[in-house]
């Protein structure tokens, strides 16, 4: 339904969007995630034909937005970041105008009534938009996008300014719409993206850094080979013994939870489940596991990790692993203290780099 190929937008030397490619199938809800200024809105503006791309293609329902903009635009309902509302019109006057503007062929009154009901604005349809609350304005903006029943909906932060009840309503509406529309939705609220979207695309500094389902992303980021175990036993001994388990890469024991009770962060080689050997070991030594927890990342952790530039996750074998991930794969025998130092140093370096980048 939507095909984006190597889409880029440069403003002079500044790369607002750099070589983004993705696809969205019919009936898919795609979430755009990224920090402010990452290029989410710019990408959406290119998809909807508001601005041109410097290079690359955006194909909507088989029609290139740059080659046949009128036709491609007729497939899109767009809710920009700031809803394009004429403040001195009434809601119904405005939506009638949009109906005419989109050269809508559906029966006017019936279709408009459907849209009013869908976003629940029937009770304000004769009021002047200027006098509506932010939540209602947002809904009128959404109504405007829905008019003409376009197969593709592009919604830039659709729940901004709504109260919690309205947010839930709009989310469930989007989910319902997602069944027979292709929806692209941007948000900075992670839980929203997680709740609504089938697939998530993370954009940072104009480049696509992740593309996948929420579970996919968490899993790929989650070091499933990393667990936290709370073990009762003499610290040094436990440390040595655990370190001795086959395939264990590193052990960090820094949280004391009680007398002789510590939390151990145990990292094994990727794909290796060390819970069994750990259990066995503890059993043999007559210690006790009080707690065993996989070090799962929430989407939030994934997001922060990706946006901080620690990792990327792309399908189709473009998967890039950052230095840090590669390092954990190598069997580095450094003691945990050293590792911590290294980490700190690296962070510092990164900061310096960032500063340099900004200076540039």
């Amino acid at each position: 339904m939507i095909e984006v190929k190597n889409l880029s937008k440069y403003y002079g030397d500044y790369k607002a969007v750099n070589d983004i490619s993705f696809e969205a199938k019919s009936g898919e809800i795609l979430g755009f995630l990224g920090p402010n200024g990452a290029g989410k809105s710019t990408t959406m503006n290119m998809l909807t034909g508001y601005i041109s791309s410097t290079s690359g293609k955006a194909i909507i329902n088989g029609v290139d937005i740059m080659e046949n903009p009128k036709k491609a635009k007729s497939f899109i309902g767009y809710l920009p970041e700031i809803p394009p509302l004429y403040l001195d019109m009434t809601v119904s006057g405005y939506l009638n105008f949009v109906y005419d503007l989109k050269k809508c062929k559906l029966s006017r009154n019936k279709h408009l009534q459907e849209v009013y009901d869908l976003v629940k604005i029937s009770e304000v349809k004769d009021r002047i938009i200027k006098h509506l609350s932010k939540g209602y304005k947002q809904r009128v903006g959404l109504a405007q996008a829905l008019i003409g029943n376009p197969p593709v909906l592009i919604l830039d932060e659709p729940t901004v300014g709504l109260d919690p009840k309205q947010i839930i309503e709009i989310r469930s509406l989007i989910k319902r719409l997602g069944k027979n529309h292709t929806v692209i939705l941007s948000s900075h609220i992670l839980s929203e993206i997680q709740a609504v979207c089938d697939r998530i695309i993370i954009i940072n500094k104009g480049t696509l850094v992740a593309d996948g389902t929420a579970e996919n992303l968490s899993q790929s980021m989650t070091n499933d080979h990393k667990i936290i175990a709370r073990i009762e036993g003499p610290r040094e001994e436990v440390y040595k013994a655990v370190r001795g388990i086959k395939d264990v890469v590193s052990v960090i024991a820094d949280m004391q939870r009680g007398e002789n009770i510590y939390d151990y962060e145990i990292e094994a080689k990727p794909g290796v489940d060390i819970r069994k050997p750990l259990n066995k070991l503890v059993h043999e030594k007559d210690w006790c596991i009080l707690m065993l927890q996989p070090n799962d990342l929430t989407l939030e952790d994934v997001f922060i990790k990706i946006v901080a530039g620690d990792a990327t996750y792309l399908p189709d074998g473009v998967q890039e692993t950052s230095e840090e991930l590669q390092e954990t794969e190598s069997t580095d025998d450094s003691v945990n203290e050293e590792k911590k130092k290294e980490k700190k140093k690296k962070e510092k370096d990164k900061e310096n780099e960032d500063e340099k980048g900004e200076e540039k």
Partner: protein
Amino acid sequence: MGAIFRREMGAFFTSPIAYIFLGVFYIMSGFFFANSSIAYQTADMSGTFGSVFTILLFLIPLMTMKLFSEEKRQKTEQGLLTAPVGLLEIVLGKYFAALVLYTIGISIFLLFALILEFFGSVAWASVLSNFLALWFLGAAFIAVTLFVSSLTENQIVSAIVGFIALMILFMIDSIASMVPVKFIADVLTSLSFYSRYNEFVNGLFNLSSVMFYISVAVLFNFFTVRVFEKRRWS
């Protein structure tokens, strides 16, 4: 185009713009009418038609000032530019809305002529030729100020720059008289809106002047389309 035209017509009359434009236009042209035709007890309207040129210089920028600037400021242009309509349709929708309001304004001259008809015989051919000239002049002026409106997101700036632009077009004769190079002076004189309009007032229906006004209108509407195209590509 129809949707945008209808919306703009509605917006003219829900905002004070139409009332101010029509009100001031009627008062001023009524004053000119009373001061020339009525005061001199003549059925000749050339005095009224001649005087109206100057009030257009500030009334037309006032009428068109917010047509594009306000869209930009309120971000409503994003709705227009992502709707399945062409840029030309958007520009012409607004242009014709302004032109219709302008036509409603200048129709008062036909009423004036009817009033005169009660007291004497009106030279209808001359009145109609004057009226057409006034209409084409407005059509050119509206295109110029609409173009100005597309350049800014501030209505006041749009109005002032529009006024200055029309003022320059009005003064082109005096500017030409100061240019020492004859060739340039000639070119400038041929671009004069005022002397062309005065020919009509003096009873000469010059088709080339009509073509001149139409060309200006077409050219500036084209420029306005280009402004949006350029913004999209930059």
